[in-house]
């Protein structure tokens, strides 16, 4: 049941992933049928607002979903390994070795009672089975690679002695110390000031070149996406609503949500004018609308939107979960048809058929 055209050379392939949370109030479908892939050396930007499921997708890849959450369907493959079929022990080996992850707030991911250098050395010696002293030297080398001045002294310092930007560098040093094939970066610069963000993005670009690793970059900041990503996935309420290469998404967005997001951000150098807005708010995950999840906020909503739209390929490599035709017109069939005809239309238009 692949919802997307298969591509060769994919390092990470996610297909039909569903991660649901069984809460007392009901089932929250945080990730509900997400499919995308990342090729070797590619940077994929995952963009969306709070609660769209972007972080849960990343945690699912790392298999770090805790109760009441559960991966209920789908597959996650890294090269030729099925991550969801691995034992806990094998998965531990994948984490940190093949895949590393950095988080938004480095203070909460570093242990406050150990010096930074020791924490990196621990990761290195665990994953490579080398002696602690040798690992310590490697840690210092990693710290200077990520641009920490006076790395030897800094390695002996505790996380609270470092600034936010320095802590994020330590996290990156730790994540890269085992030469991962895939780096998952969840809002890596959101907590940082803009001049420090520029430093960290620059660093990530340089390391990406050198290590030739793939990056899954999760952020709500469209500027960071435009700066870093090769391909982009836009998520809304647990589903992928649009995906393509970065230029297409920014220049020819198809889904009304993507269009709305791009129109609503103030940009540097644009004259003062009224901002476009997306009306309303993100739907309650416990009470999702029937059909298209965006229809209540959508300026192009039409009767057919009561039927869930499929993710259709509107151009080679450009997918959009919307009933509008590739040209952005309302579809001829189903526009004012009865529900039954709409379902037939759904079957006709979907690439899943």
């Amino acid at each position, binding site marked *: 049941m692949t919802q997307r055209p298969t591509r060769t050379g994919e390092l990470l392939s996610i297909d039909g992933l569903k991660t649901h949370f069984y809460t007392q109030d009901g089932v929250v479908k945080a990730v509900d049928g997400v499919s995308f892939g990342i090729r070797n050396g590619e940077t994929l930007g995952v963009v969306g*607002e*709070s609660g769209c499921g972007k972080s849960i997708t990343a945690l699912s890849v790392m298999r770090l979903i805790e109760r009441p959450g559960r991966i209920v369907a789908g597959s996650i493959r890294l090269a030729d390994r099925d991550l969801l079929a691995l034992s806990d022990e094998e998965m531990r080996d994948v984490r940190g070795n093949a895949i590393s992850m950095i988080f938004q707030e480095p203070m909460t991911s570093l242990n406050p009672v150990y010096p930074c250098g020791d924490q990196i050395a621990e990761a290195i010696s665990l994953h490579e089975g080398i002696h602690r002293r040798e690992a310590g030297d490697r840690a210092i080398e990693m710290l200077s690679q990520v641009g920490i*001045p006076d790395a030897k002294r800094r390695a002996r310092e505790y996380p609270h002695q470092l*600034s936010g*930007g*320095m802590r994020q560098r330590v996290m990156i040093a730790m994540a890269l110390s085992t030469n991962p094939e895939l780096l998952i970066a969840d809002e890596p610069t959101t907590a940082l*000031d*803009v*001049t*420090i*963000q*520029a*430093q960290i*993005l*620059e660093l990530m*670009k340089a390391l990406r070149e050198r290590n030739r690793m793939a990056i899954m970059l999760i952020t*709500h*900041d*469209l*500027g*960071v*996406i*435009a*700066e*870093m*990503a090769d391909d982009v996935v836009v998520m809304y309420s647990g589903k992928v609503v649009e995906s393509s290469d*970065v*230029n297409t998404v*920014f220049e020819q967005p198809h889904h009304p949500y993507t269009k*709305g*997001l*791009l129109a*609503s*951000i*103030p*940009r*540097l*150098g*644009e004259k*003062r004018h*009224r*901002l*476009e*807005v*997306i009306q309303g*708010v*993100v739907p309650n995950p416990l009470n999702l609308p029937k059909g298209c999840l965006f229809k209540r906020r959508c300026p192009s909503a039409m009767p057919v939107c009561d039927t869930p739209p499929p993710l259709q390929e509107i151009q080679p490599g450009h997918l959009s979960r919307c009933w509008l035709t590739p040209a952005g017109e309302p579809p001829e069939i189903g526009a004012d048809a009865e529900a039954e005809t709409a379902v037939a239309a759904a079957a006709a238009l979907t690439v899943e058929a």
Partner: protein
Amino acid sequence: METTNPGAQPAAAPAAGETLLRVENLVKHFEIRGGLLGISTIGAVRAVDGVSFSVRKGETLGLVGESGCGKTTLGKVILRLIPATSGKVTVKNRVLFDIPTEEERKAGRRATVLDAGEMKKARRDLQVVFQDPYASLNPRMSVGEIVGEGPLVHGLTDKGKREDLVRELLARVGLNQSHIHRYPHEFSGGQRQRIGIARALALNPDFVVCDEPVSALDVSIQSQVLNLLDDLQQELGLTYLFIAHNLAVVEHISDRVGVMYLGMMVELAEVDDIYVRPAHPYTVALLSAVPDPNPRNRRRRVILKGDIPSPANPPSGCRFHTRCWLRERLGNPEQCTTVVPEFREIQPGHAVACHFAEEVTPDTIGAAARTGGPVAS
């Protein structure tokens, strides 16, 4: 006997229109206590260190800077939510406070501070919208109580008429009037920020300090709140001091923009001027660091080295000299490390605190910019 920084005044003075707020040499130091008993003063965080500017009626002055630059403290000191160390703030020709510096005090100058009764009256004109819509609303009060409390305290309404007033305010900020009896937790972040705005408007103020009003909100909600602030300014003739770290947001909403670094104002100009022709090396770097939401514009940036120094121990001379790309380019002139640059006007209405502002040209900026990664095809 006013003591104003002679360089600051002309630039800070609005070109036209009535001055609503005037801030002169404002200083706020937070003492660091320490020593054996923890009661002696061992230093001070110089959060705001001699800032002067004025805001004319009906305009929006944007204030940008990174964490620790003192922009939030400045807003709070102006509102007298925290006491100033020294300096003078005048709102609508009423002096809120005029506190002498240490030396002036020794020379016999006395502080003038509005008494509590007068300050309460003044507060009607001065309102604030805070950053975090989750922390700034009392969870035990209903929306009606939150929004209606101010007018009640100031005797502008009574309990009977309060509900009508609140309903009107809710409608004005785009909230459902029937939600008046609901509690903050029943609202989304954007709606809560609207409640905070309704509360600020309840006293019919002239002047509103907006402290990062949209930074906690999602992108699609940000634009709703920015448009609302815009509309309210048009309808009610409000004056805003808009504090934010997002340069695109500040450009969008402001008429003039001030840039702060380590407690000092380093540049102040009309919005078009400062964004097109920044004259302080820090402003240049700040603007250059903003990622552009256009994948074909992966441009070269001026990347600053190092972190922001601690405001408890700011660098000597120009506070920016430790990270300054221009200083490096000019062969590290001694002046930068020894002399505090004057906040001077380089053009009418454009003030900057840099000894070498004239050297900030497209050529020097271009040379300082490093390649910002592979350029998209």
